[in-house]
């Protein structure tokens, strides 16, 4: 099964003729991802690594109705429009690699996507990989061995680091999802975790967080109230970072004192999620949750 992407994924690349789009189309093709079409306005008729290019998403879908996923490499100024087009054309999973999309744009976009039942991964995400099955993203595939651990991460390269440490300790990954590093993202930790809970190929989840915002605290609260769970091990980056600035009074009113390393670790541990205190510790912590929790959470 895996989550979000697998053997049945058929991919459209938006912004396929750009430097990043073209390079990662090749990388994804090498990995075995089924890329069936690309879009760049004005470039209809061209091919990129053998993939046909269309002027717009509707035209691509007319020729390739099997497309069910899009990956977006379009620059920030045009990316929202590209995503709206994909949503309106009926694509239900859209992975937005683009960084530096203004938060207001993303806010509207994500809300619109949700209103149409569309899953948006990102923006500012490395994407999604289900090792051995499909990669819709820019992550180096080598770090990700196939296996039964789900990874969900706010950060890109840190996700690779964690995956590579898991691999070196003998753990493989069912699916790894970068939710994206921006203020506003299409998926939350909760969203991805709930997919892992329903996935028969995932035994446990590694959550990779970082300081700032209250995404981890929210997940901890959600997790503590869940009835059906799978074990979770967490790692939070930013333990040594100096305290950041708050957003005036409004920040204090809305967020209170959350967002710090201490607050995140406290929330997660209180919810029963052990937090690896060092990158070197992740494998050990994961092993421990797998042992202690499997019995009571087996589905």
């Amino acid at each position, binding site marked *: 099964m895996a989550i979000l992407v697998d053997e049945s994924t058929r991919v459209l690349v938006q912004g396929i003729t750009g430097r*990043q789009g073209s390079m*990662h189309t090749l990388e994804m093709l090498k990995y075995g991802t089924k890329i069936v079409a690309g879009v760049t306005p004005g470039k209809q008729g061209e091919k990129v690594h053998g993939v046909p290019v269309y002027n717009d998403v509707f035209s691509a879908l007319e020729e390739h109705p099997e497309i069910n996923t899009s990956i977006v490499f379009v620059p*920030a*100024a045009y990316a929202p429009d590209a995503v709206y087009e994909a949503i309106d054309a009926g694509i239900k999973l859209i992975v937005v690699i683009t*960084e*530096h*999309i*203004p*938060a*207001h744009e993303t*806010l*509207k976009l994500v*809300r*619109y996507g949700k209103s149409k039942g569309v899953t948006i991964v990102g923006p500012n995400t*490395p994407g999604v990989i289900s090792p051995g099955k499909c990669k819709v993203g*820019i*992550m*180096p595939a*080598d*770090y990700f061995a196939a296996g039964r651990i789900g990874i969900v*991460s706010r*950060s*890109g*390269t*840190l*996700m*690779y*680091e964690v995956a*590579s440490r898991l691999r070196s300790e003998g753990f493989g990954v069912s699916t790894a999802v970068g939710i994206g*590093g921006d*203020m*506003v993202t299409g998926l939350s930790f909760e969203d991805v975790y709930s997919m892992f809970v329903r996935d028969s190929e995932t035994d446990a989840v590694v959550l*990779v967080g*970082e*300081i700032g*915002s*209250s*995404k981890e605290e*929210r997940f901890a609260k959600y997790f503590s109230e869940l009835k059906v769970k799978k074990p979770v091990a967490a*790692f939070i*980056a*930013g*333990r*040594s*970072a*100096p305290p950041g*600035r708050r*957003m*005036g*009074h*409004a*920040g*204090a*009113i*809305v*967020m209170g004192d959350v967002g710090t390393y201490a607050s995140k670790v406290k929330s997660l541990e209180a919810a029963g999620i052990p937090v690896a*205190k*060092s*990158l*070197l510790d992740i494998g050990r912590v994961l092993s421990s949750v797998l042992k202690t929790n499997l019995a009571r959470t087996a589905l």
Partner: protein
Amino acid sequence: MILYEFEVKSILEKLGVPVEPSCVVSSPDDSLLHSCLRTIGPPYMVKAQVRGWGRGKRGLVIPAETEDGAVQAVKELFSSSYEGQRVRYVMISRKVQVRREYYLALMLDADSQRILLLASREGGVDVEKLARQPGGVLVQTIDPLLGLRDYMVRRVAEHLGLNASEVGNILRAMYTAFWSYNMILLELNPLALTDRGLVAIDRKAIVDDDALPLNSNLSEFAARLQEELSEVQRISLKEGFTVVEVGEGGIAVVGNGAGLTMATMDYVEQAGGKPGLFLDLGGGASSERVEKALLLIMSLGKYDKVLMNILGGITRCDEVARGILRALERVGDVRLKMAVRLSGFMEEEARSLLESRGVRAFRTLEEAAKEVIS
């Protein structure tokens, strides 16, 4: 980017929010100062313009009853500083007779992924305290696809005990400003009730840095910020680096990606090292950007060790290696102790490039960190 109060004032004023008469000077000798004081008339509030909060508590807002007093206050403020930065602008406002103070804010809340409209019957510094009481602060969610609706205005006016049409004009202007200027936060604090109605006598805003290159409404403010940047900040902004001085240590920690760089720094500290600088190269760093980052670190003269942790992906390891070598070539005789950990896309090419010039490239963070901590 945090806007200056006078910048926010000009935005709101254009949109029809009632504000007090004021002007801004950029030095105590500003030729406009005296005509400004005369136009406004006493009594005055003389306020340092700073990119941050807590100005009042730090004595950066000075009331003055007379022109002379105001001139004195302006001088005093220009010789003050705020978080290590000198004061560049001072605003002189007509002091308004306040009957009551309120708080109004719009913010983009990352957690609920909604826009929040906050309103409180108590303006000024008590807002945070008030927020802890149930019902102390009204929090109204605004759906970005729907926008500000009349019922929200009615609720806010009701909560504040104020006239709905007056509050409505202010809220609509705020909401327009929020979107037109990509504001992540907009605060009127206090919004003052005077004999002539509501006046927004203090105001703050943060705009989304990602919007700066895209939204031409922001260019004026971006240009002003640009002038104030230090060399380090200027280069960082241009190259897309995130640079933070994190302590007194001598180790500069460089990585590609904020999470990875933070985790690297955490590891250094746990292993007994003393990080002093955090530098995130961002995604897809080219050799030029890596070179610039290293030259930047060296130019600061505070750091004798660099730990660089690179996971290839969108970034090519060989590009990073070339950037390192170019930086080292440029500075010639290098005192810098450098440990590089490379992994991923084009790793082998990078390793052989570096080692051909005598730079050690490690496979694991542990090894690389050991090198700079020892």
